[in-house]
């Protein structure tokens, strides 16, 4: 059963350059059948494209998945994390279901049965997004390594073997008002904290 996936972006003015797909300008319908869907979604997210539709066309008909069903939902601060377990359970059930479906393929399963299963699958996919958001949130928190770890990772700077010739900089008169006056005012306004790093 061949399925074609079409990404439809109606908003004008974007330059879409998804790896593996010919670059184009929007509005456009882009065939993303052979492209990793995560890659496509990641590109859309990084480009700030929020309004799009994915059309899934197959012999069984056409399905429309709107962007609001897939991504860019606001994170709910109090989203319960137990959703992850619930979705894991559903994934297990889904795996079993697909397994059974595959073993039955020679027994002449009807198109209606396949359609029903796929409809159920679509509902599950929508629910998976909740767990994806929770996972992303967790990974965002962990993504940044500790400063101490980074500090040892950044190589020591050694310029003893380098020499510089010529003058690469230009000088401009700083005509931006009285530095001291502004600094005094700022100093009064700011609740003076502690001063930065050590040489």
């Amino acid at each position: 059963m061949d399925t074609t996936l079409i990404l439809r972006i109606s908003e004008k003015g974007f330059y879409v350059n998804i790896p593996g797909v010919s670059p184009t300008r929007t509005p456009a319908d882009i065939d993303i059948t052979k492209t990793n869907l995560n890659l496509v979604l990641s590109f859309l997210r990084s480009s700030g494209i929020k309004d799009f539709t994915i059309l899934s066309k197959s012999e069984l008909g056409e399905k429309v998945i709107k962007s609001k069903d897939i991504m860019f939902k606001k994170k709910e601060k109090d989203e319960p994390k137990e959703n992850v377990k619930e979705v894991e359970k559903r994934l297990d059930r889904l795996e079993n279901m697909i397994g059974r479906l595959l073993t039955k393929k020679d027994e002449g399963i009807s198109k209606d049965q396949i359609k029903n299963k796929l409809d159920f699958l679509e509902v599950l996919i929508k629910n998976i997004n909740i767990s994806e958001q929770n996972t992303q949130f967790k990974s965002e928190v962990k993504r940044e390594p500790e400063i101490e770890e980074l500090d040892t990772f950044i190589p020591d700077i050694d310029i003893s073997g380098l020499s510089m010739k010529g003058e690469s900089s230009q000088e401009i008169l700083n005509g931006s008002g009285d530095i001291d006056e502004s600094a005094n005012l700022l100093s009064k306004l700011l609740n003076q904290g502690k001063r930065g790093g050590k040489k």
Partner: protein
Amino acid sequence: MSEEVKEVKKKDDVVCIGLDCGTMHLVCARSDSPEVKMTRNVFLKLDSEIQMTDLSEISYVENEDGQFFIIGSDAFTYANIFGKEVSRPMEKGLISPKEIAAIDVLTLMIKNLIGDVKGKDTYCSYSIPAQAIDEDRTVTYHENVFARILKSLGVNYTSVNEAMAIIYSECAKEKFSGIAISFGAGMANVAIAYKGIEALTFSTARAGDWIDKEAASSLGMVPNRVTSMKEKYMQLSGEVSVQNKKTKRILEALFYYHKALIDYTVKKIIKEFDDKVDVEIAEPIPVVISGGTSMPKGFVEMFKDVISGYELPFEISEIRRAQNPLTAVANGLLIRTVSDVKGMGK
């Protein structure tokens, strides 16, 4: 921002510095000089394809292995001549992951820019971008690389948000309340501040380089060439006095991408403000536009035109350009350094 309190010597022995670490330019302001020093943050490695017989007229760095790196504006000029891409220690506002080896060259450029600080207590605020809302890279590595560079040069350092530096430089008369937007090369940085305290900072990964890249891609050109045309001829209002058809096409493409950039940034400001700012800002605040990308004539007018099409969640008193968009960040960083040093009782 870590801690450093040091026994400070008498006033003449203390030097305060503001160092703007931009994708396209490095800019340095010193408390003991009325001038701001600026250099292009690019270099060009001379390889076997590029043969230069005379290096006397250009600035370059030579390493132990006899390799040459043309630095600053000269790198840009020669890259254009040879049809090469310059190497950039920074990309999209942060230390480039592709140019890790360039950190030593960058250190030498910063050393040259800061100048002589021997025997002086030197305090420096250096600029860092805010976390981008449309890209996953963090600023941590970038912040720490510059910290290490300044440490290696014997300078006391602290990092300061780039757009907040514009507030310090340009909004003294509003007691450091306002919205600052720095349209740089790699990023657009935004800060919303109220009486010197930041209410919101964020950045987007779309700025001058994005304009150049998109325009170049539309016209099938090398981005360097588009950048060069932009800096020579670009203006966003009035008649452009170029006859060459190809140049006209480049400028036309650049015009549309400038508008798209402003529109994108304004949308993000509104969204971020709506989502994240809880403070009620009672009085109208100014919007200050700065950064190298805002240099073309008509940029501020185009910004006013675009923003007038939106309903804003705050009231604007005026939209104005920084006194000098290229040096405003360094100047604001210097103000912050002097303010901090004064706060230490020096």
